[in-house]
């Protein structure tokens, strides 16, 4: 079984909501990223979303744009991130890890070689915001050859009649984007967010995870009945930045959020 699916199944059995945090790989450097991932695991994070920095992150707001830019300036690239993944898994880190990245990075690496490397280094899933359902055939051809790495599907408040098509055959969890636009805009969710989450729930058995603009467990409290967990990205980065990327800060935030989410 895929590592993400196994963890989601555990959450379901325990009747717990899942918690996912995002960080950009290489911020401030890859050694620090490793320590933060370990801290996220200790804090009870169910999945770690790891941003692979790209020069033109069109789905991201200012915080993650800036984080990506700095990571690239620091010399981080996908090859080094694969290296870090190997080390993490060798050191016994078991938390599911998904890459959040842009499709050009995959194409440049070579789609088949990229998927193979993900399989080998313990990358459990991929989130590619500029690869909508219609463009996924090329990568799915290789992903579907094993259970190791799966493609996470994104849906948006305006996906409407596209939802069944996107979720047919989807795996792991559904990433529900809370608002229109980019990451990190604050908890100003789409006006139809509840009816939209309901639609998604009806269309799938998969856990429904909500992300974009979330800072605290309180932000998602009104949607609690409709979601199976929450994803925090930009805010988590800002928080770490303020605390000089101390692993302790990551651990505490994850533990507190997850506890609050399941209260």
């Amino acid at each position, binding site marked *: 079984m895929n590592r993400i699916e196994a963890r989601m199944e555990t959450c379901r059995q325990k009747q717990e909501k899942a918690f996912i945090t995002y960080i950009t790989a290489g911020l401030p450097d890859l050694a620090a990223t490793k320590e933060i991932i370990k801290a996220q695991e200790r804090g009870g994070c169910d999945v770690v979303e790891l941003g692979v920095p790209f020069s033109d992150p069109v789905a991201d707001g200012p915080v993650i744009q800036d984080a990506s830019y700095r990571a690239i300036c620091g010399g981080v690239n996908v090859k080094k991130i694969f290296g870090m993944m190997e080390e993490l898994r060798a050191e016994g880190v078991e938390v599911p890890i998904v890459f959040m990245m842009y499709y050009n990075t995959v194409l440049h690496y070579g789609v088949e070689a990229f998927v193979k490397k993900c399989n080998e280094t313990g990358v459990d899933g991929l989130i590619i915001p500029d690869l909508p359902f219609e463009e996924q055939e090329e990568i799915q051809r290789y992903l579907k050859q094993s259970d190791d790495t799966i493609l996470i599907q994104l849906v948006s408040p305006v996906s409407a009649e596209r939802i069944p098509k996107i979720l047919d055959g989807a795996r792991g969890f559904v990433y529900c984007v809370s608002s*229109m636009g980019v990451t990190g805009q604050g908890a100003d969710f789409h006006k139809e967010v509840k009816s939209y989450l309901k639609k998604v729930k009806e269309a799938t058995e998969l856990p429904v995870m909500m992300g974009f603009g979330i800072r605290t467990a309180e932000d998602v409290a009104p949607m609690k009945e409709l979601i199976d967990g929450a994803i925090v990205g930009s805010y988590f980065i800002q928080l770490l930045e303020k605390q000089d990327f101390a692993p302790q800060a990551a651990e505490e935030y994850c533990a507190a959020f997850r506890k609050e989410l399941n209260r």
Partner: protein
Amino acid sequence: MNKKAYYGEFGGQYVAESLMNTLEELDAAFEEAIRDPEFLKQYHYYLKQYVGRETPLYYAERLSGEYGMKIYLKREDLNHTGAHKINNVIGQILLAKRMGKTKVIAETGAGQHGVATATGAALFDMECTVYMGAEDIKRQALNVMRMEMLGAKVVSVTSGSNTLKDATNEAIRTWAKTAEDTFYVIGSAVGPYPYPKMVKEFQSVISREAKKQILEAEGRLPDVVMACVGGGSNSIGMFADFIEEKDVKLIGVEAAGKGIETGEHASAMALGEPGVLHGMRSYLLQDEDGNVQLAHSISAGLDYPGVGPEHAYLKDSGRAEYTSITDVEAMDALMELCKVEGIIPAIESAHAVAYVKKYAKELKEKLGEEKAKEQIAVVCLSGRGDKDVNTIADYLAGKGYLN
């Protein structure tokens, strides 16, 4: 895979899920509009009465004499707002109105597309916001002023390299947020489908006129058609009606900047590898990690790391050839056109003029002087050079060209 979104292996719709319905609506509205005689009547009315079409196909007699072949210039520089960009803007804004949108956004590099969009927005009473890199805002102060006079809001983009590619990223981000009431007017033959098709449709008026005009003037089709290529809007418009005419050679001229070998250029086709940027798969300048590389050209309008997907397809299928011209060659041609024909071209367009000179020289060597003289080239003079006077002055001061 949405097959109709592709030109061979290029094109597609590499955008966020939240934009997919928007693109589908746009595609449906566009296909319906271009089949509606009322819409086309309106579009052509504004092209004639407002833009000033048709533009002349001018036989550049003295330049022809200098270079050694018959050169016809398609005078897009005589359009209202000074370039071909307005053809497309009129079409897209009429479509936006028809779709009930009240706001338009646009990206701009040199500012020509921004000015054209601001102009169209003023004409059709739409709210207009233009995204422009902070670096370009400095370089193109005059066009910023023009956009503001026309009532547009110019937003300075300070992410990445602060130029056109970043302005485009920001416009896409804003669009993803506001697509419900906002129409994104893309200025080049780039972006997710149906944009490349739409831009071609609205720019193809260039070749439709030119074909008719050259038949009137010469009684036959040209031997070669040339245009400069940044994203590729004037060139796709210039090629459109000649693509089916297999005996007409099509040549796109990219910017070689300081020289392809220096790495400081904007020739996506010369060294680019296929990649994904701004919603499309096409040739793209990128570094060894797959990050998008900065383009360089003295011409802000060609300073773009990608190229429209249909051009990538025309190159791979062999139907069109792509070549490049350096900053220096373009500036020499610009000055030559000023002196010989009394036309100050945009630096972008000067790239095409520079190439026709090279081409004619090769022709002379191959066919001999007499036969070369009978060969006909149609060159798209996509814009006028008024906007470039400051850049030209700086360049000349550095080089002492006029002394």
